[in-house]
């Protein structure tokens, strides 16, 4: 399952709309080991194409060094499809090389309604997963330890 904050979803969709009809792409980094997307990092699509995306190789190095410096990993790798469904293509599955990432696809084929779906892609195998959009991570899970003391309310 992908649990993700609403503002991050909005940011990805806005990016996809902005770059339409070219495919938009980017990463949402998060602290290693937490599986929590936190830092939105839109990337330039060096291919600037309506049917292909690729991070520029210099940008890619900078990105990974930057994430490394912050002890982050790419929790979400997103890109848009501008005329097809929000499902990984054969090319997407073949090239995907981050087995721990959530691959988010956004389709902007409809000018009014976007589609957003998330997938794991491991060894070329695609598995869809549900997306849970939350207002914040702090209150996403409640339990006895998370409930504030009455006096604090």
């Amino acid at each position: 399952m992908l649990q993700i904050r609403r503002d991050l979803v909005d940011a990805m969709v806005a990016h996809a709309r902005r770059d339409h009809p070219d495919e938009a792409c980017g990463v949402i980094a998060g602290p290693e080991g937490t599986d929590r997307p936190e830092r939105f990092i839109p990337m330039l699509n060096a291919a600037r194409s309506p049917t292909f995306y690729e991070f520029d190789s210099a940008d890619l190095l900078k990105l990974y060094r930057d994430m490394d410096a912050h002890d982050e990993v790419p929790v979400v790798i997103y890109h848009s499809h501008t005329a097809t469904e929000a499902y990984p293509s054969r090319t997407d599955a073949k090239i995907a090389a981050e087995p721990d990432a959530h691959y988010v696809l956004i389709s902007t084929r409809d000018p009014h309604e976007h589609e957003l779906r998330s997938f794991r892609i491991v060894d070329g195998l695609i598995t869809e997963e549900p997306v849970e959009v939350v207002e914040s991570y702090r209150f996403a899970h409640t339990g006895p330890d998370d409930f504030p003391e009455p006096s604090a309310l």
Partner: protein
Amino acid sequence: MAVTVSIPTILRTHTGGEKSVPAAGATVAEVIDHLEASHGGLKQRLVKDGVLHRFVNIYVNDEDVRFAGGLEAKVADGDNLTILPAVAGGAR
């Protein structure tokens, strides 16, 4: 030339989980062959038909080797090599 090679997550199965390994060679090709000798299976993930795999990037320090001669790019003592799979895909 003694160098250090950063290994991306997806290739760490070949290095026993290590994210950084030492290697040697005067060119990127030699470094890869040296890596293959101690971490079998790595080369075929990097090289296809004698050239660098289209969706694998290798950098010597900050430079993408594609701009420095590809597999024949020179490597100096103390250099850091970084291997990063491309992040790419498409509609089809």
